[in-house]
């Protein structure tokens, strides 16, 4: 059973419905999509007593405004968009009770790039290829395959758990700065770059360009030198891979990336650093640091253990 929960007063530049993404369809040319900042997204659901993978809103930058159509519990995580309820400041990273008619606004960007709004019970939309995630480019999933528009009415499922107000442990709330270090594992085609090229990549500061979206982040900075050329026989594109086309400028490929491509890929972002890229915005600085597979897996293990700790302490 689902009932109306929000009316969209203003959608902001890009607000979409996302979940953990769709798995198994890249072989048919369909990207996974899903929440770009998997950490903030999963926590938002935990704060309202949902399963981690319930559908939620991904709100990009500021300007979104929603009206509650009934009483509901929500939680906002991710970017600090100076959230207000009826004009009064409201807390993020904790569960928040709304009454019918309350107006929720995201008026200003303080830090980060994408906020997540979870609703108790989860946003209700039909699943397409087993996921609620929106892939706007092909009009697949979410709210009719598109970003939210003014006047859209969102439905949420009935919450099955009784939700109490919970607050995220402050030590686990990320701080989003303007300069991030992204850890990468070399490959798949690091052998097609010169030593100088690899050194440029690992020792330069890059700037997030205006072409930065859910598909990928184009970076500006020193050009990375190939040995012979940038073209390869097209192959798959892992999440977080850093592609370097002929112009030598790196592109970090993200959840809405094309499933295959024909440019050299110098390194791949480790899983736990994807959420940090998700919160970087045009103008922010990125530098890359090489790690090995063992370090990456150890960090991922720690990340998942932290998620378990958060769960047990939230529901203690």
């Amino acid at each position, binding site marked *: 059973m689902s009932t109306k929960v929000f009316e969209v007063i203003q959608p902001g530049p890009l607000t979409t419905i996302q979940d953990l993404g769709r798995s198994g369809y890249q072989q048919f040319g369909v990207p996974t999509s899903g929440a770009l900042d998997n950490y903030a997204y999963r926590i938002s659901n935990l704060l309202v007593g949902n399963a981690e993978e319930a559908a939620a809103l991904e709100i990009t930058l500021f300007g979104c405004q929603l009206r509650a159509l009934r009483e509901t519990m929500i939680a906002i995580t991710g970017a600090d968009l100076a959230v207000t309820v009826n004009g009064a400041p409201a807390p993020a990273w904790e569960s928040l009770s709304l009454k019918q008619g309350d107006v929720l606004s995201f008026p200003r960007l303080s830090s980060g790039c994408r906020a997540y709004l979870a609703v108790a019970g989860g946003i209700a939309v039909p699943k397409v290829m087993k996921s609620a995630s929106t892939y706007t480019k092909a009009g697949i*999933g979410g709210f009719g395959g598109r970003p939210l528009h003014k006047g859209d009415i969102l439905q949420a499922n009935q919450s099955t758990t009784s939700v109490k107000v919970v607050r995220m442990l402050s030590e686990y709330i990320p701080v989003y700065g303007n300069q991030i270090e992204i850890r990468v594992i070399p490959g*798949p085609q690091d052998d097609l770059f010169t030593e100088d090229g690899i050194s440029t990549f690992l020792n330069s500061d890059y700037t997030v360009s205006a072409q930065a979206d859910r598909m990928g982040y184009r970076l500006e900075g020193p050009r990375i030198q190939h040995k012979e050329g940038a073209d390869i026989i097209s192959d798959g594109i892992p999440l977080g891979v850093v592609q370097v086309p002929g112009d030598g400028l790196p592109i970090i490929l993200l959840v809405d990336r094309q499933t295959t491509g024909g440019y050299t890929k110098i390194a791949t972002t480790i899983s736990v650093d994807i959420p940090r890229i998700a919160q970087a915005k045009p103008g922010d600085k990125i530098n890359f640091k090489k790690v090995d597979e063992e370090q990456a897996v150890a960090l991922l293990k720690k990340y998942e253990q932290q998620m378990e700790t958060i769960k047990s302490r939230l529901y203690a």
Partner: protein
Amino acid sequence: MIYKEPRFLSGGDHAIFIELGDSIDPDVNQRVRNLKLAIEKADILGVVELVPAYRSLLVYFEPLQISAAEFRETICNLLQSLASSELPKRMVIEIPVTYGGEFGPDLELVASHNNLSAAEVVRIHSGARYLIYMIGFMPGFPYLGGMSPEIATPRKTTPRLKISPGSVGIAGTQTGIYPAESPAGWQIIGRTPLELFHPNQEPPSILQAGDYLTFASITPEEFTIIRESVRKGTYQLAKKDIA
């Protein structure tokens, strides 16, 4: 050429490429398909998703369930027993196409570029069997091999901003079908009334890597009839198994 030993390339902490050869070649691609099917059949714990390409398979895995090293070992064992394992047959799928006119505005250009008549271009294009090397670029878009060099034509110098779903085109020595509306620099020679991609069907793409397709020339009247039956969901795709 198929490599003697597969090359394992890193795709980060959660993905690995298995590269099986050095070229775009039907034998290499068949080995990619066979390996994909063998991994699916082996139902390996921690394997999340497989993406076949021309000469490599990208495998997404859950690193907290299986390590890349364990996975590499499993793959080497699978590759050794690949020849003897039973694999599903490949299919040839027939794609009806109306060539020329409003359906294929560049047919005449492709003909004159190659000093052929439009009818000869249609005969050559619909007379070949094409290997679906992989699906990529956009949902349901097939990368095809096997087009005759006799009808090869460079891309348009100025791409069209919009082409219709189902457009069949030529770009250099490649031919392909656009499943959805898109900007395109390809020379459009015809259009199919079929819908290559259905988000709500399982599998969503009627074309799959490793299968073959052929094009069959149909009249504009037949286009309308097939289009109607596709819309009603009554169209029977013409396909047959091959050895």
